[in-house]
């Protein structure tokens, strides 16, 4: 028994450390259930013991609106802030894929994004994209639950130095790497081989973004 409660604590710890969002008791019950049904009370107790174990460390277990999360104590936030300044935030893969799907499949719901990506979509990602001004809720889909429909903004076009999303290659073009390279070249993005640092290419300074040579009319044709 002693063994078991310890194990439960550690599993909860593992889940909380790996999750990028708070986990509710209900979620935890669901995550733990397949093996042996564990009651909410039991989980709550284990969380309490886990919280106590974090005393004297840099982290703490905190209950927030949407559940429990492990977070760095406020007294150390200054150090973390330094780290973040030194290392500018990176666009995560999940965020990039979500944004790309919204570009290509808008208006699209969170559920549809999850379906295509095969993984659940962290609310943080949508929040971040909205805060950054790249996407917005454009309506709701009239299906049960009335989920929000997401679409792209002018800001995103500006930041990508595009006049219209139509300038992006079509899906078949993306599939074929040679065609993708050709499409990128047409958009003024250098080839990967030419610039080893792939992360910085394509950053056409907005101010200089030359008027794209397409006539306005043609840009929307296919």
């Amino acid at each position, binding site marked *: 028994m002693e063994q078991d409660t310890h194990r439960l604590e550690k599993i909860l710890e593992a889940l909380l450390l790996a999750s990028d969002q708070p986990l509710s008791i209900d979620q935890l019950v669901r995550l733990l259930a397949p093996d042996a049904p564990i009651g909410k009370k039991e989980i709550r107790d284990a969380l309490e013991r886990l919280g106590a174990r974090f005393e004297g460390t840099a982290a703490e277990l905190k209950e927030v609106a949407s559940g429990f999360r492990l977070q760095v104590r406020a007294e150390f936030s200054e150090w973390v802030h330094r780290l973040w300044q030194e290392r500018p935030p990176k666009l995560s893969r999940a965020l990039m894929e979500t944004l790309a799907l919204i570009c290509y499949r*808008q208006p699209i719901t969170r559920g549809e994004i999850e379906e295509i990506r095969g993984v659940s979509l962290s609310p943080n990602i949508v929040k971040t994209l909205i805060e950054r001004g790249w996407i917005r809720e*454009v*309506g709701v889909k009239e299906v049960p639950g009335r989920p929000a429909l997401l679409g792209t903004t002018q800001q995103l076009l500006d930041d990508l130095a595009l006049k219209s999303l*139509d300038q992006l290659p079509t899906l078949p073009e993306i599939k074929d790497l040679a065609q993708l390279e050709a499409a990128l070249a047409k958009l003024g993005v250098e080839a990967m081989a030419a610039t080893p640092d792939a992360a910085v290419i394509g950053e056409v300074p907005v101010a200089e973004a030359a008027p794209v040579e397409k006539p306005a009319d043609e840009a929307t044709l296919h």
Partner: protein
Amino acid sequence: MNDPNPTVEAAPEAPKQPKVHGQPIDKLPDDLYIPPDALEVFLDAFEGPLDLLLYLIRRQNLNILDIPVLKITQQYMEYIAIMRDMKLELAAEYLVMAAYLAEIKSRILLPKPALEEDVGDPRMDLVRRLQEYERFKTAAENLDAMPRVGREIHIAQARPDLVVKPQPLPPPTLRELLMAMRDAMTRAEMFSHHQVAREPLSVRERMSKILTRLRAGPASFFDLFDPEEGRAGIVVCLLAILELARGAMLEVVQEQAFGPLRVQVARARAVVTEDELTSDFDKEPE
């Protein structure tokens, strides 16, 4: 092999009779028999001729060093013959290997002139290649078995509860964005959905714009079009409205015969209240 059409699946009711050297085979030898429609899958399971050869050797619990070259060669040839006769796409490497094996075989079978002593065993090179390939095949399996970040290893993360935003996210490069799309699509195998293939993105973009516009209230159908955009713009707009209507994201309503078309956000079917109807009605014409 150059024939694009007749594949095994094309005529499932009359499975093609495997032939070797033009002669139909009534019964394949036990260890060679593969259901005809599985041949393609079978071939896909191999990483190339070396892999196939290794399989033939290993299947009989033989050491590479003990390859009965003649036998293995013959088996290999049989596979190739069947697959060619069945018009399966066969990578050129398989044919090159077949030619190579044929050469080895003929050199072994031909009486060896005394002078040829120092040329060495013709199988030597093949054995070396097989061994070398097998080393890396095993190494690849070992490598794949190692714990990997994202599979067995997960980074432990916690952040402070502070709202100070570190720095705004940098905009993605187009390459990053497109590669991300490529990855997502590849995983979802959505590339195969031809209906999404050539859809102009401007339609998708316009769909979002129209929805945003309709949030402010219903609009007259024609107000959604901007004549200044020209013909192409109007087509895009029309496609966007149709697509939205098809996806039950908006409704096109005509209150009376020959009356104006009105476009509005789709409403949950059951909960249309009189209130909404009248308020919609009030706002109507523009």
